Structures are given as structure tokens and as C-alpha cells.
């Protein structure tokens, strides 16, 4: 495998994007025009008994060409109502993420410092982690209703795990020599924690936050799609799915969601590189996968 120069990589990447775009365009145009007026595939407000999925549903395999989707996505950037919705999603996202960090970091530092507690708690966590957080949406909706509190609560729950894991894992990776040195100089336990372990663990915490940020977006959008009313990007997508030729809007919403995800990830990666330029890829070593 020969080396590729940076510039070649950029040009090739651009070519790849154009090719993908072209392919989507071709597929969209091959499908012909939009179908005639048809009843919507399902009603969100009807009783959820699964009956609505039966008679009256006509499959629509019409996919609009990529250029139309892109044009619509750009158009949405000027739509006040849409932007408010995105803002609402981001607000819940930020709140949930912030809360989870506020809980997970001190908890992780505590757990990581006391090895016995840590290995004991690990058991409980091993059982809770595989549970898909979206499964909690019905439960939390029953407990807290269908407002923003539900969204934030779910996001917080889901985001605690990656941050918690990475904090504990990062603590385990700190150099014991550095700790012993400080202790030899008479610094107390808390001092050692703050002066050595916290800065050493910080890159891992940052990586955990990056993973949690993606998780938070998933939960935010998922909760919105299911709740059906209110403000949010997920709401927009779900409601567009009901409209008769809403496919274009649905895809435009998806584009926005993807761009949002990319921007969030990019900002966080850049932040990590700026703050912790010395750490290589090992930061992502913890088991911080999506729950």
C-alpha cells in the first residue's frame, strides 16, 4: 500500500462525495416522478394497536434525487420554525449531556479510587449497560410524561455510562509512580487526586464525552420521533413522514441530523486535540461503546 499525500487524500475524498451524490441523484431520477395522492402510511395519534398498518397502505418506493434533498435542506436553514426545532433538540441534548457528565465524572473518580467498590459495582453495571436506552422511553414516559423532562432524563441516563467507564478506565491508566512521588512529599489523598489523577484522566473523560455526545443525539432524536408532538428535529422528520410527498423533507431532516452529528463530533475531536495534544489514539481504549 503506497503512501498518499494529504492533498491527494482530500481530492479523493471530495471525489468520493461527488460520486455518492451522483449515485443518489441517479437513483432518485430513475424512480420517476412522485406518485399520485395517497393516504398517509400511518396515524401517530390513532390507538397504537397495529391495525393502522393494514388496509389502505400503499408502498411508496419513490426517493427524490439528491439535488432536491440538498436544496430542501439548505432551504430549511432559513426556516425559522425548523431552526427553533433544532434548537430545542440541541437544548435537551446539551442539558442531558451536561447532567450526565456532572454525575458520571465524580462517580467515576470515586469508583476508580476505591478498587473494591469498583469491582463490585462493575457487576451491576455489566447488567445495566447492555440494555438499549431507547427501551426505557415507554417507562420514563409513563413516569414523567411526554415533555422535555423525559427527553433529558433519558439522555442523562444513557450518557452516564460511556463517561463513567472512561473515567474509571482513565484513572486506572495513571502512572502510579507520579502518585507515589506526590505522596512521598506529604500530599494528602485529595490533593493527589486533583493534581495527578484528574489531569491524567482528563483525556479519557474527553473521549467518553465525545462518545456520549453521539449517544445523546440518538436518544434525543429517538424520543422526539416517538412522542409525535412538540418541537424538535425528530418531530420534524416524523411529521414529514406522514405527509403525502414528505419523503424529501424526511431526507432533508436526515441530512441535517447527520451534519449535526458530524459537527458535534468534529468540534469535540478538535477540542480534544487542542487540550490534550500529547495523547495518541489510546484515549478511546475504554469500553465506551453506545449503550
Amino acid at each position, binding site marked *: 500500500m503506497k503512501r498518499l499525500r494529504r492533498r491527494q487524500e482530500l481530492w479523493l475524498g471530495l471525489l468520493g462525495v461527488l460520486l455518492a451524490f451522483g449515485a443518489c441523484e441517479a437513483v432518485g431520477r430513475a424512480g420517476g416522478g412522485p406518485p399520485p395522492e395517497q393516504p398517509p*402510511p400511518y396515524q401517530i395519534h390513532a390507538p397504537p394497536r397495529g391495525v393502522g*398498518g393494514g388496509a389502505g*397502505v400503499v*408502498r411508496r418506493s419513490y426517493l427524490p434525487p439528491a439535488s432536491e434533498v440538498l436544496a430542501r435542506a439548505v432551504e430549511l436553514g432559513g426556516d425559522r420554525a425548523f431552526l427553533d426545532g433544532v434548537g430545542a433538540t440541541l437544548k435537551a441534548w446539551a442539558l442531558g449531556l451536561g447532567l450526565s457528565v456532572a454525575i458520571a465524572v465524580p462517580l467515576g473518580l470515586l469508583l476508580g479510587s476505591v478498587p473494591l467498590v469498583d469491582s*463490585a459495582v462493575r457487576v451491576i453495571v*455489566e447488567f445495566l449497560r447492555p440494555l438499549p436506552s431507547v427501551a426505557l422511553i415507554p417507562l420514563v414516559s409513563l413516569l414523567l410524561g411526554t415533555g422535555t423532562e423525559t427527553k433529558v432524563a433519558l439522555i442523562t441516563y444513557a450518557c452516564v455510562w460511556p463517561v463513567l467507564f472512561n473515567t474509571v478506565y482513565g484513572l486506572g491508566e495513571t502512572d502510579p509512580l507520579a502518585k507515589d512521588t506526590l505522596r512521598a512529599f506529604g500530599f494528602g489523598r485529595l490533593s493527589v487526586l486533583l493534581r495527578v489523577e484528574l489531569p491524567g484522566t482528563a483525556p479519557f473523560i474527553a473521549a467518553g464525552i465525545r462518545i456520549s455526545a453521539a449517544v445523546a443525539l440518538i436518544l434525543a432524536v*429517538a424520543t422526539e420521533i416517538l412522542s409525535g408532538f412538540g418541537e424538535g428535529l*425528530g418531530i420534524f422528520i416524523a411529521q414529514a413522514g406522514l405527509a403525502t410527498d414528505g419523503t424529501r423533507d424526511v431526507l432533508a431532516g436526515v441530512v441535517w441530523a447527520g451534519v449535526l452529528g458530524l459537527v458535534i463530533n468534529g468540534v469535540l475531536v478538535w477540542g480534544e486535540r487542542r487540550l490534550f495534544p500529547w495523547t495518541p489514539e489510546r484515549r478511546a481504549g475504554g469500553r465506551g461503546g453506545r449503550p
Partner: protein
Amino acid sequence: MKGAAAPVRNAARGPAAAGRAGGHVLLRLVVLVVAVALWQVAARAHASVYFPPPGQIAGRAHELWFSGPVGRLFLTDAAVADILPSLGRMAAGFGIAAVTGIALGLAVGRSRWAYALCNPVLQFARAVPPPALVPVFVVVFALGTPMQVASIAFSAVWPVLINTAEGARGTDPLRLDVAAVLRLNPVERLWFLLLPSALPRIFAGLRLSLSLSLILMVFSELLPGTADGIGFTLTDAQSRSDLLTVWAALLLLGVLGYVLNTALLAVERRLVGRGRTTA
């Protein structure tokens, strides 16, 4: 001493180490039992309908799904009608994602230019929160099993694909030279070098894909208009405010998730060998 063998991770361990491992398992069991007991006591004392005690939850789960005839592994009709379809869809989606992801990932990772070509598109695809895609599949496929399997497969393929590609890219250049010197043809190179070398990375991707598969399986069944599945059980119970069933379904999902993850880990250990797992 120079020339000593590279550290052998699964060298024979002494009885002390075995004792420590056994002690760990015991500790974990004890903690689990204590935690459940505490939960039981607290829930009983609080007596809230929203937080039933674990004993009751387990009881409901048993009654709903595991109190059937012996011949069918104790599964009830409800279990067969709900759990099996869910698992089937998840398995199909995950299977498609795994095979496609590994195949495409190896193809992309093999050459520098293919990777540079596909990388931005892949990064975008991976950044889209999967639940946002489900409405697209609803529009294209209409509700039902094809939509669900497609949602699961399409969302779960990216972590496998990207991790496989990066695993293939990270092949040791010296080993590539060896393959050139041994005059291995492209198929042999793939089978004897690229694939085994990338296997740890591939499994890291598969683990992520598995959890995404679970998420999408549940999510696609939470949508109104589904007729069966664990997710449907959840929304159905939610609409009836049947909290006990909701908790029972969550318990089932947690156990399922745990079992599947453990199984994947076991497969990884078997294929990759103990010295090389990333878990």
C-alpha cells in the same frame, strides 16, 4: 535476556491466580445478590406502583413468557409470538450488517486510494443518528418486517465497515512485505494476512454493531403500527399503564443484551485467541 520470547499472555497461571479469579466471580455473585435484595426491600417498603419489587417483575416475566410447556423450552405462546420474531429480525439485520460490513470494509481498507475515496462519505453515514433513518425506511418499505430488518442492517453496518477498513489499513507493513516475498495472490493475502490481522478491530466494530442492532430492533418496534415484538410489548403495556409488564420487558431486554454480548465475546476469544482480544 535478549531474544526472550514476546510476552505470552496465556502462559500457564499458577494456583494463586486461579484462586483470585474464582474470588472475583464469587464477589460478583455476592454483590449481585445483595443489590437485588436491597432493591427488593426498598421497593417493598416504598410500595409505589411505578417501582415494583424485583420479585414481582421476575414473576410477571415468568408468567408472560416462560411458563409454557417443557417441550417448547418453557416458552409460552406469547413468547413465541413476540420474542422469537424480534430476535429473528435482529439476527437477520445484524447478520446482514456483519457480512456486508466485513466484506466492504476489507475492500475499502485494502487500498489507500479506496479508503481516501470512501472515508468522508462513511464518516457522514456513521454520524447520522440511526433512529432518524427509520422514517425513511418506513416510507420506502412500509411497516413490517422488511422495514425493520432494513433499518437494523443499514444502521449497524457502519461501525463494522469502518472498523474493518481501519483494521485492514493497520496491517503491519513488514507482514505485507512478507506476503509480497512469499508471492501470495490477492485472495491468499486477504485470507492469511488482512483478515486475521484485522480481526480484533473487526470484533470491536461488531460489538458496537450488536448494541446498535438491539437499539434499532427495539426502536423500530416502538413505532406505532407494529404488530409484534418486544418493543410492541413495551408500547402496548405503556398504553395500558401496565407498569409491571413494562419492567418485565426491560428485564428481558437487559438479559438478552447481556447474553448476546457475552456470546459475541466468547466467539471473539475463540477466533482471535486470548493474547489479542481488545475487550
